[in-house]
């Protein structure tokens, strides 16, 4: 099947408006006759479910947590972008569009990104109207901060808990519709397959996680907003339950999987402390606004710090290497994530890491304390030369901005970041790859849509900070509700979709067979045993930097591990009860397939772009080297084993932006 991105004709600025004007509409009375399933109730799924219900469709929404309010979106810390130009610093729709395409290393679709920039301002208005308590300045107006990779202040935030507040906003919009009976919410339900009837997505098979019951749910269209697959790495900043299962099952039913190897490694996470570790914690990137990143200049100081004989605060300024400020003077500590992550790895690989394992760099607020403190002392008419006072005043300001992050750090690491610099290291954080969708957010399976992190669309090879929340809400509130109507307009006479059909029988059978196989396996090792091994392969061979040899090895090793898993996994308990191990086993089984496709995709891409750094393709200064011939989206078609997947290419055409070497110097 040829890929058709369905990008509307006409000038970039008019595409979305014209498209909306031409799209088929469904009459409100007919919307009542149409059912839509939304899987996932994070920012993308939650906002979509609420809006579709508001429009009049009958919505069934699913999530595996006990409440939609607990979706992984809740953890987002730093903020959400919008081209409001409230700060008067030169922001505009075009600039947000430009920054996002450039930040994504020219590997995203122009038309989608421009639409995202256009609707971004509506998101803020909408959320404020819903009672989302964004940060405000003393004049009572909305406050902004700046994020990596851009030169304007366009990020709206709610302390370090922006995702929580935005999700609670979407959750409350859902609650209103649940209260009205327009959304039927299925919590603690896991989707395990998509049902395709006559080539169209017509329902899902879900498992009630409390009773173990397998259920059939039908609809005229199915929307997946099931989040990213970074947990393939085992250790990541994702919530424990985040998985690829829904997306992978959709892939197996015909949805192409795009750019699986584009993974974002976030530069400011708390380093790994030991083997028992179950997840990594992110410290919001907004910290890079005020924190300076450094390692010692000299190896002898590194050793002294590691053995505890030297405190970082005692190291003289001239003995520190502020390597981001040194290498990238224009953006300094605010370079995009891929650049910051790789630079940290480069220093640590060279032996300058500051913790016991040599995998940590410092994030230091000492200069910020003094800078803010001086300003405060000046404002308050106090003694600007009293260092202790200035530091205290500065710490107050920093506490106001990032207090909860500092507290979180202290709880985890047991060190006070007001007194000693934080230690950070990059960790897997976001997946830019996902299900391929066209401009209407429809996958290659008619009637199956994919939104938010689960799709591949807007971020290219690298995602700039504060843009995932923007995309999730844009898709859910403002894009999908229009585009899905175009498809559903043909379904007003279809009537309810029956579930007692061969297609539902078959899908249910394949789900129960897999579960039976897992539960009766009587192997010798736990699910986590296999998941951790997969994670090691992924991190070592498909991580921040990759090469052809390692990737080839990874492909073989993952296939072998998968075979071992199916022979050797052991799951206690039964299938017809609450059984967390069984649920986990299904997710890991899917990661074991995705992982292989991931490595295969990385191997094909003989260039470096954003979150995909191929060691063979770098400039003499160690920067990523893009190659024009790889200016495409890779979209993989399922053909059985991941090794047999077939590659389709969507060429990326840049008509409105000159493709330039991405430089932050």
């Amino acid at each position: 099947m040829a890929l058709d991105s369905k990008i509307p004709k006409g000038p970039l600025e008019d595409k979305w408006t014209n498209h909306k004007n031409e799209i088929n509409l469904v009459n409100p009375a007919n919307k009542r006759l149409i059912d839509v399933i939304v899987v996932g109730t994070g920012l993308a799924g939650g906002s979509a479910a609420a809006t579709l219900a508001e429009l009049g469709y009958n919505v069934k929404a699913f999530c595996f947590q006990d409440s939609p309010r607990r979706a992984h979106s809740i953890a987002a810390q730093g903020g959400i972008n919008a081209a409001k130009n409230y700060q008067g610093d030169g922001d505009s729709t075009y600039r947000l569009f430009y920054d996002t395409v450039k930040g994504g290393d020219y590997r995203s679709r122009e038309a989608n990104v421009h639409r995202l920039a256009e609707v971004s301002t509506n998101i803020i208005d909408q959320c404020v109207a819903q009672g989302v308590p964004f940060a405000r300045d003393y004049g009572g107006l909305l406050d902004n901060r700046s994020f990596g990779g851009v030169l304007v202040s366009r990020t709206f935030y709610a302390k370090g808990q922006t995702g929580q507040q935005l999700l609670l906003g979407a959750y409350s919009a859902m609650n209103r519709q649940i209260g009205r009976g327009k959304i039927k919410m299925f919590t603690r339900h896991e989707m395990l397959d998509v049902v395709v009837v006559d080539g169209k997505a017509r329902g899902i098979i879900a498992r009630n996680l409390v009773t173990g019951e397998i259920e059939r749910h039908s609809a005229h269209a199915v929307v997946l907003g099931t989040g990213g697959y970074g947990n393939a790495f085992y250790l990541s900043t994702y919530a424990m339950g985040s998985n690829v299962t829904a997306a992978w099952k959709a892939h197996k039913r015909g949805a192409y999987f795009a750019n699986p190897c584009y993974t974002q490694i976030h530069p400011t996470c708390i380093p790994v402390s030991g083997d028992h570790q179950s997840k990594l914690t992110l410290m919001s990137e907004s910290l890079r606004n005020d924190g300076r990143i450094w390692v010692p200049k000299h190896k002898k100081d590194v050793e002294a710090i590691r053995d505890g004989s030297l405190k970082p605060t005692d190291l003289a300024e001239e003995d520190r290497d502020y390597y981001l400020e040194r290498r990238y003077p224009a953006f300094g500590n605010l370079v995009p994530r891929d650049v910051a992550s790789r630079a940290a790895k480069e220093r640590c690989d060279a032996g300058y890491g500051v913790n016991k394992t040599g995998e940590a760099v410092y994030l230091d607020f000492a200069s910020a304390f003094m800078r803010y403190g001086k300003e405060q002392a000046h404002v308050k008419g106090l003694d600007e030369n009293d260092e202790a006072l200035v530091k205290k005043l500065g710490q107050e300001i920093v506490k106001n901005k990032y207090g909860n992050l500092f507290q979180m750090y202290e709880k985890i690491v047991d060190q006070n970041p007001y007194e000693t610099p934080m230690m950070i290291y990059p960790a897997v954080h976001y997946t830019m790859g996902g299900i391929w969708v066209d401009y209407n957010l429809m996958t290659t399976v008619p009637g199956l849509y994919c939104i938010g992190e689960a799709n591949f669309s807007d971020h290219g090879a690298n995602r700039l900070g504060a843009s995932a929340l923007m995309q999730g809400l844009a898709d859910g509130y403002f894009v999908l509700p229009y585009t899905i109507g175009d498809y559903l307009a043909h379904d007003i006479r279809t009537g309810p979709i029956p579930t007692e059909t061969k297609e539902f029988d078959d899908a249910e059978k394949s789900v129960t067979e897999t579960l039976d196989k897992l539960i009766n396996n009587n192997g010798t090792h736990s699910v986590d045993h296999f998941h951790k091994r997969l994670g090691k392969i992924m991190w070592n061979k498909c991580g921040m930097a990759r090469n052809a040899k390692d990737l080839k090895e990874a492909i073989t090793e993952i296939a072998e591990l998968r075979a071992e898993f199916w022979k050797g996994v052991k799951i206690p308990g039964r299938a017809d009860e609450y059984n967390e191990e069984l649920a986990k086993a299904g997710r890991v089984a899917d990661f074991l397939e995705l992982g292989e496709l991931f490595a295969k995709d990385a191997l094909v891409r003989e260039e470096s772009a954003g979150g995909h750094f191929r060691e063979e393709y770098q400039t003499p200064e160690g920067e990523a080297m893009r190659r024009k011939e790889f200016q495409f989206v890779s979209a993989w078609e399922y053909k059985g084993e991941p090794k047999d997947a077939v590659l389709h290419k969507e060429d990326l055409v840049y008509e409105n932006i000159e493709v330039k070497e991405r430089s932050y110097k």
Partner: protein
Amino acid sequence: MNLTLKIWRQKDANDKGKIVDYPMSDVSPDMSFLEMLDVLNQELIDKGEEPVAFDHDCREGICGSCSMFVNGRAHGPDTMVTVCQLHMRSFKDGDTIYIEPWRATAFPVIKDLIVDRSSFDRIQHAGGFISVNTSGNTQDANSIPIEKENADKSFDAATCIGCGACVASCKNSSAMLFVSAKVSQFALLPQGQVEATDRVLNMVKQMDEEGFGNCTNTGACEVECPKGISLENIARMNREYLAATLKG
């Protein structure tokens, strides 16, 4: 560290449940409490036994999934943290640790340490929202300035993670702190005024129907709340409620 865990095991809602002892050795002080339970669970699985079921997801103290009593205290001995953020350095070698599920009529046990908190969701369905269309045709976000002090207070109330520790630690199993947090968030914002009366009446009514007890101002909820939601919110909700009933 070596520890003795005494964990509540209960197969399902109908099972009676009992405390079972599990000795643990080599526990590192750097582990989080849930990572310590992960290690126990791996040992149980290796022995062919069923792992202890508990709710958790983000493990960053923000999703509100994790929920358990540790030595009789909701989320354990530390203050202002959820149990996923509690670290084993808060315990000593040789300690005995009791681990039990939330207890409240409105939170029936599903399995082991997992309880059903959907009553919280139903309270939110009754009124935890502002009735604005999700169309995006709203006015510019800066057209109504909000005094920073109110904005901050509203934000503080909004940080409730819906964990249920307040209910679990209240001798009356009252949900007042949780409900008042939402009511306060909206009461402090100009956007929330449109349906303030209905909101507080409906939410309180649903709270009573779900079987939560009354608030007798003991304050245990505030002490155990991992997010520092303050009793001030209960006072604000009572004022809102009174005003609403007077309005009729």
